[in-house]
């Protein structure tokens, strides 16, 4: 978070905030169930990492068929559909992680972009809509583009605000989109749009492959998209843009002073986050086949945020895991489904107090040349250097 502001600020809290960040990064380095795992992972040669990654991906693709006891959902919830739901939440979390995790902008209205994607997809494919019809798969890029435009429209006026004001303004934006979907007659409010399109292809018996009740193909489609998006986001993270985001997150004033055009990169973070949100919204609309104004409330936004924070803010693997968990738990334990918001609310508080870095903490490393530096440092066994903040650069 930044330490100074455009807005009215009362406490000159630069000192305490910096101390807080420093203590925070120390905590990040020392704790975590995945720390040993990460060191092992970092120690593997590139080929080994690829092999493990392929195994994980293969397992992920096989997930709809792993309907075995500890994993499976309780009766009444279809397992492949649950897989799809987990995948959509994971995709949303990856997108929100760009905004909250990388750039440190607290967006409480992320569901608005999800809604924009869903409505775009519905308006362009549903027979209930008077607009021209295009094939469903084309609505994915169109939904992304429209959501991105909304992201820029929201971002340009509001991103000049700092931290907490941004939070309240995005929350308001989320509400505005939901209310507009209710008020504008063309958006059909609670009636909504039936028979949203789906990708082409039918089985031998004439039933579409991408039927609403058949979660597996939808899950595979979403998983493929997740892999592509994660790779792209990972590349961005390691690029100039990603370094700028992390600099903004750590200290916006310092970033600005060092010549980072902070406003531009904040808008970029917003636009890219919105883009992924729109994409997941379009996927969701296609699978459910029905879009109305009921799904896009503040609660869902907070659930998305809970997914990112739970997984580990600033870590895309964490975001994937967090998203999947948030979607999975209410389906796995239907007895507690009514309590899900209570549980996630308490989880947010407890996590912030005891483990603010989430399940999978963000990596601590030099941003640009991680591998090179790590290998150079690994030769002399000097953990102090590797752990120290000075040679490693910014803690991420």
């Amino acid at each position, binding site marked *: *978070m930044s330490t100074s502001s*455009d*807005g*009215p*600020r*009362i*406490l*000159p809290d630069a000192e305490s*905030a910096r*101390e*807080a*960040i420093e*203590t*925070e990064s120390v905590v990040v380095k020392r704790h975590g169930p995945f720390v040993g795992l990460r060191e092992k992972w970092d120690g593997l040669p590139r080929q080994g990492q690829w092999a493990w990654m392929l195994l994980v991906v293969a397992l992920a693709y096989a997930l709809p068929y792993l309907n075995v006891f500890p994993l499976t959902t309780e009766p009444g919830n279809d397992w492949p559909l649950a897989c799809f739901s987990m995948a959509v939440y994971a995709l949303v979390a990856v997108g929100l992680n760009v905004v909250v995790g990388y750039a*440190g902008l*607290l967006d409480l209205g992320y569901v608005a972009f999800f809604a924009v994607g869903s409505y775009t997809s519905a*308006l362009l494919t549903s027979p209930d809509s*008077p*607009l021209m019809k295009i094939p469903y798969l084309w609505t994915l890029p*169109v939904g992304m583009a*429209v959501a991105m435009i909304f992201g820029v429209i929201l971002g340009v*006026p*509001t991103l000049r*605000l700092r*931290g*907490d*004001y941004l*939070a*309240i*303004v995005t*929350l*308001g*934006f989320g*509400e*505005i989109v939901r*209310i*507009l979907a*209710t*008020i*504008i*007659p*063309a958006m059909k409010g609670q009636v909504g749009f039936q028979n949203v399109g789906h990708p082409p292809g039918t089985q031998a018996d004439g039933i579409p492959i991408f039927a609403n009740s058949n979660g597996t193909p939808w899950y595979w489609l979403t998983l493929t998209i997740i892999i592509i998006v994660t790779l792209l986001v990972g590349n961005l993270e390691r690029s100039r843009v990603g370094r700028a985001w992390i600099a903004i997150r750590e200290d916006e004033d310092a970033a600005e002073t060092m010549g980072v055009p902070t406003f531009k990169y904040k808008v970029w973070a917003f636009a890219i986050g919105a883009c992924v949100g729109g994409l997941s919204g379009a996927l969701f609309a296609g699978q459910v086949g029905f879009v109305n104004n009921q799904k896009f409330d503040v*609660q869902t936004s*907070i659930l998305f945020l*809970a997914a990112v924070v739970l997984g580990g*803010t600033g870590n895309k693997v964490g975001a994937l895991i967090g998203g999947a968990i948030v979607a999975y738990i209410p389906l796995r334990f239907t007895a507690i489904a*009514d*309590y899900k*918001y*209570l549980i*996630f*609310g*308490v*989880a*947010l*508080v407890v*996590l*912030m*107090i005891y483990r*603010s870095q989430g399940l999978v903490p963000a990596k601590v490393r030099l941003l640009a040349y991680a591998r090179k530096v790590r290998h150079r440092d690994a030769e002399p066994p000097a953990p102090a250097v590797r752990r120290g903040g000075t040679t490693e650069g910014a803690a991420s």
Partner: protein
Amino acid sequence: MLDLLLTTHPVLDNSWITLDFNALAQNFWSATFDGLTFGAIYGLIAVGYTLVYGVLNLINFAHSEVFIVGAYGVVMTLTALGFGPSAPTIGIGSIIADLLLALIVGMICSALMAFLLERIAYRPLRRRNAPRLAFLITAIGASFAVQYLIFVIRGANAEPAVTMFVNSPVFNVFGTIIFSQQIIIVIAAIVLMVATDLFIRRGRTGRGIRAVAQDPDTATLMGVNKERIIVITFVLGGLLAGAAALFYVMLVPSGVIYNGGFILGIKAFAAAVLGGIGNVRGALLGGLLLGIIGNYGQILLGDSQWADVVAFVVLVLVLLIRPTGILGTALGRSRA
């Protein structure tokens, strides 16, 4: 692109947004007085946001739950005292006594909620020197947890309506009837705000609050007990939210529902920002203004849901043009 399609397509091009100036002109004064009444409630809640923001630099999202807990306290007290959907037939003296009791219970419930919130959620974070994002996320998490705790206990339905007294017309201004309710709410809110303002500007504790808002470390060095001041700030905000809860139940008898505080809280925060966050007088001014503007917007655009949209748009515009709000000066900088 969507916009383009919406305007060019013959079916979608029906008038979903109409500016009905005629209706606004006709209902101008009643809209103003209704807006003032709601605005007074926003203002009372906004003080809680402003005080906590002044002292901790934290948007206390859970303040809306502090408010709604107070509203539950008020409704339950009144129901226990025999109030129901229709106005009671007892004497005016006993009504006043009952309302005062409900007010006290509401204030205690809210203050207790605020105190617990501070102890359970925020204090451990301060101990750990957590970054500011952690505070915000905790606030949201706490807000959610309390909301759905109420949901689990009281269910998804609103509490049964409670009418406190016959809302009788008192006098006529600009051809608009002013009701007893409106007078009671606005005057009581102003009295409470003046008392709060005096408490912060005059008293020893108030000086402590201002000192901590200005510079917590120096205040501590000067012998101010920072932790105590923070607790007092939360409790003070809670007391006012509890009072607001009574007026809210008076105005919207069937509005006490588990998530009823959330949007109201956001609008109250918008009011605090509008008036200048960290400024107690600004909170009341912002609340009244936001109430009026929202009401005008809703009549002008013809749907009650527009009130929220208008309120948020106004908030964004104010932040862009004057980020410190209308009155601007912060709690810590107001003169001793």
